[in-house]
């Protein structure tokens, strides 16, 4: 078989089972694609030898008839996941040289299912960013370009390296994490599928924390089927994470029937934003029509507190981050600044953190410190928590009214140019999360599905939001949308 790296997970799994290919061949194809894709800067730590060892072991298991669910499938892992003995830097200088002595639960689940790790993927520093430009490794680049314009575009963020790698067929699929949209926005920018499951579905153990009450891992894949398959493997109760749900994980792939007749799809009026590009508006209408045509009924709904979500998110997430990132102090691991004569512990902290954290991380640590400080706590943090409760209630109300899923745009625009936001107010960048943060605040599952292309040929995605713990139903609706949209475009190879 040729172009093995272009296969999706389910296709490759079936080919492996039939004996049409081997994991070593699949892995080698991915490794050479990675080697040829330096310009995308997607993989930041490559593990080819480890990958080939794992591939050989997988082939042996397949031959022995002992193949677990994802045996032999080569993946990329976001740099936010701690991977045993492999650099795990969260895209930050402050974790320079850090080699975990442990494997995150999610990546361990994937290894236990027989997957092959190709290496670690680029990301915004500590998952803080929407363009991949805050990465210490320099940004990953979107494989998609506007028409014949060769201006480099962002793959989105924070899981931009994962999105670029999957979109450019450097791997069959990748892990991402999503705190405010970090899976769904880059998936939409690169024409792939990305799902953030219900908060508590995936263990956070071993994933470098950004905002603990919002962070969730999820798959970034070439199809909804692949997402269903990979999510089934990633999920599961983990006693090492107190916020992990002790619930059985169904076989999500088996729940994909494509039949959504009688489902009620909510269209929230508050997501119709001023200044939204017409193409996004049109895409949303098209997606609505596709679901209606597939037999779902379309219901106008209201989520009245939506407009407060972004400000609340940008209080809660930095607050938690300011505390979560306090451990990066140069004392035990990672970067430590060179100290001058007479420098004490305070100087060590200040210099280490000033050198180790980039400007966006520093900004958020400062915002978070500010909103938690005495005298401001109630006005900011507590107020944001109340808003969060109201947003959650908004969703509960519509689900109680019988809505099965909610359809919204995934992003307010298609991928933008790298550097376009450099001089902009940081709020402009934060607006990228406007459609996605509500889902994190409410702890709900959300999936981004590629549905169409803009006039310049860039992919655009729609988001479906589901009931908590009902990823199976959500994936099935996404599967129907994917089928109706028939999005098959791939970026022209220029790298």
């Amino acid at each position, binding site marked *: 078989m040729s172009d093995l790296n272009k296969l999706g997970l389910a296709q490759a799994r079936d080919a492996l089972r039939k004996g049409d290919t081997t994991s070593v061949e699949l892995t080698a194809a991915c490794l050479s694609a990675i080697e040829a894709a330096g310009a995308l800067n997607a993989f930041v730590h490559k593990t080819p030898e480890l990958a080939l060892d794992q591939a050989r072991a997988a082939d042996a298991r397949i031959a022995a008839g002992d193949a677990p669910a994802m045996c032999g499938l080569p993946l990329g892992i976001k740099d936010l996941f701690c991977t045993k003995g492999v650099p795990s830097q969260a895209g930050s200088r402050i974790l320079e040289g850090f080699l975990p002595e442990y494997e995150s639960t999610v990546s361990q689940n994937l290894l236990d299912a027989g997957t092959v790790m190709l290496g670690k993927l680029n990301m915004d520093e500590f998952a803080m960013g929407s363009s991949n430009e805050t990465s210490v490794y320099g940004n990953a680049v979107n494989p998609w370009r506007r028409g014949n314009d060769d201006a480099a575009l962002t793959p989105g963020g924070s899981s931009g390296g994962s999105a670029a790698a999957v979109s450019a067929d450097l791997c069959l699929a990748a892990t991402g994490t999503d705190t405010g949209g970090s899976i769904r926005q880059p998936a939409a920018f690169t024409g792939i599928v990305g799902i953030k499951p219900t908060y508590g579905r995936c263990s956070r153990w071993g994933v470098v924390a950004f905002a603990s009450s919002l962070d969730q891992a999820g798959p970034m894949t070439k199809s909804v089927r692949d997402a269903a398959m990979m999510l089934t493997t990633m999920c599961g109760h983990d006693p090492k994470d107190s916020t992990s749900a002790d619930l059985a994980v169904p076989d999500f792939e088996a729940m994909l029937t494509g039949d959504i007749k009688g489902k009620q799809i909510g269209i929230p009026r508050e997501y119709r934003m001023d200044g939204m590009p017409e193409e996004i508006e049109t895409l949303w209408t098209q997606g609505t029509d596709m679901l209606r045509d597939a037999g779902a009924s379309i219901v106008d709904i209201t989520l009245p507190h939506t407009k407060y979500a972004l400000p609340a998110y940008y209080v809660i997430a930095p607050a938690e981050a300011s505390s979560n990132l*306090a451990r990066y102090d140069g004392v035990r691991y990672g970067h430590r600044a060179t100290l001058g004569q007479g420098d004490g512990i305070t100087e060590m902290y200040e210099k280490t953190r000033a050198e180790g954290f980039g400007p966006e991380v520093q900004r958020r640590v400062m915002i978070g410190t500010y909103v938690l400080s005495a005298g401001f*706590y109630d006005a900011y943090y507590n107020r944001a928590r109340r808003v969060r409760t109201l947003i959650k209630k908004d969703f509960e109300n519509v689900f109680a009214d019988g809505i099965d899923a909610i359809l919204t745009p995934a992003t307010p625009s298609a991928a933008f140019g790298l550097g376009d936001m450099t001089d902009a107010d940081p709020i402009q960048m934060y607006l990228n999360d406007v459609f996605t943060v509500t889902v994190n605040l409410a702890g709900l599952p959300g999936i981004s599905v590629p549905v169409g292309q803009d006039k310049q040929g860039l992919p655009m995605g729609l988001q479906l939001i589901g009931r908590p713990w009902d990823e199976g139903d959500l994936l099935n609706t996404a599967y129907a949308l994917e089928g109706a949209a028939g999005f098959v475009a791939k970026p022209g190879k220029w790298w």
Partner: protein
Amino acid sequence: MLDLTYDLPKIKTIAGAKHDWELVIGMEVHAQISSSAKLFSGASTKFGAEPNSNVAFVDAAMPGMLPVINEYCIEQAVRTGLGLKAQINLKSAFDRKNYFYPDLPQGYQISQLYEPIVGEGEVLVELGDGTARLVRIERIHMEQDAGKSIHDMDPTMSFVDLNRTGVALMEIVSRPDIRGPEEAAAYLAKMRQILRYLGTCDGNMQNGNLRADVNVSICLPGQFEKYMETQDFAHLGTRCEIKNMNSMRFIQQAIDVEARRQIAILESGGTVDQETRLYDPDKGETRSMRSKEEAHDYRYFPDPDLLPLEIEQGWVDDIAASLPELPDAKKSRFINDFGLSDYDASVLTADVESAGYFEAVAQGRDGKLAANWVINELFGRLKKEGHDITDSPVSPQQLGGIIELITKGDISGKIAKDLFEIVYSEGGDPADIVEARGMKQVTDTGAIEAAVDKVIADNPAQVEKARANPKLAGWFVGQVMKATGGKANPKAVNELVSKKLAG
């Protein structure tokens, strides 16, 4: 069971240059929960291990590591709350207290600010002079201990030992009901006693397993009563917190020194700053720990890594049913059932082991006699030898045997002391020893009479003197006792000597 009643202790006042001042003291007792594993990790809590050997990934705050609550520690906190007659909160939550220090790897301490596991309770603090103070407990919360920074191993570097990091502590917060240095020490002693009874903290102050932050303020007479009436702190003075005290003696000194410092400030027209201070026992002074610029803003917020802690009433009830008899109840029972004095009952209930020993000795025997023997002979001897009740060479059965021999009149009190010595150093069954060594008391009046007659006959000059001065009869008693090898019943000897001398 009778409840014990006490008078209120006299409030300690300190005379200033202008007038008298009263002390108002509240304490935060940090008690290490007796648990083999830490509060949020499985790492060992064993004291004295090699530096950094009892450290799990989460204790070292490695990236992505998460805390998981140790259920056993929760049980111990609930048990402690029940032992202090406190409200148990079925829902509590953990918060992060944020500050930077090298021995605090996470950059925050997980604690319970907003919703502690235990609410209001109380402790009766006896002062040993028939008075006692009822001190209100405001709350108990669980939190992580920090590690240890070591600054004296190298001239240019500091080292950190994380063995203690994450060990479970209970912080037991009192209301400011303590009114003097002695009361503060007695409060901590009582708290230690209760914790040790409950088995929730070993009370080892030397190892730092029990330590206290002491809040001290001063006020003019009458102000405290206004505070008690209104619960409005405005009636009280500004407090200073003396951190990390682990000696009863130093606590008393520090309170006295701090109160006098505050009096001097106020009487010279100044104001006391609310701050944390350290006591320096060498210099006999308290010192400010940090300047205002360095004052911490802990930025407390709910720990998003931990869900709120919910426990069930049934579980709490089970723990309540398994509580041991506590010091107050035991002391009251000893007074009522064994007829002990308040003092003896206090001494014997100081710790569970002593109380248990005493009860084993006293069961079915003369309680007062048993108390005398345990306190005066056994404790005295153990103390001399540097032993503890738990490694006493004399078992309760042996001591009980000695007491039985006394009660039966088989041996005199004096012989009993000799017998105790033999049992203590050589062991053996007291009754067998008495039999084998002929230590049994002679109550045969014929034999005693013969001995008395012989002494009188041998000492005519003494007889003359004694007849003139009956007080000298004691000399004859002594001689008879000597002649009988101490085995004669002293009462019988006394009577016979008096009779013969008179006749």
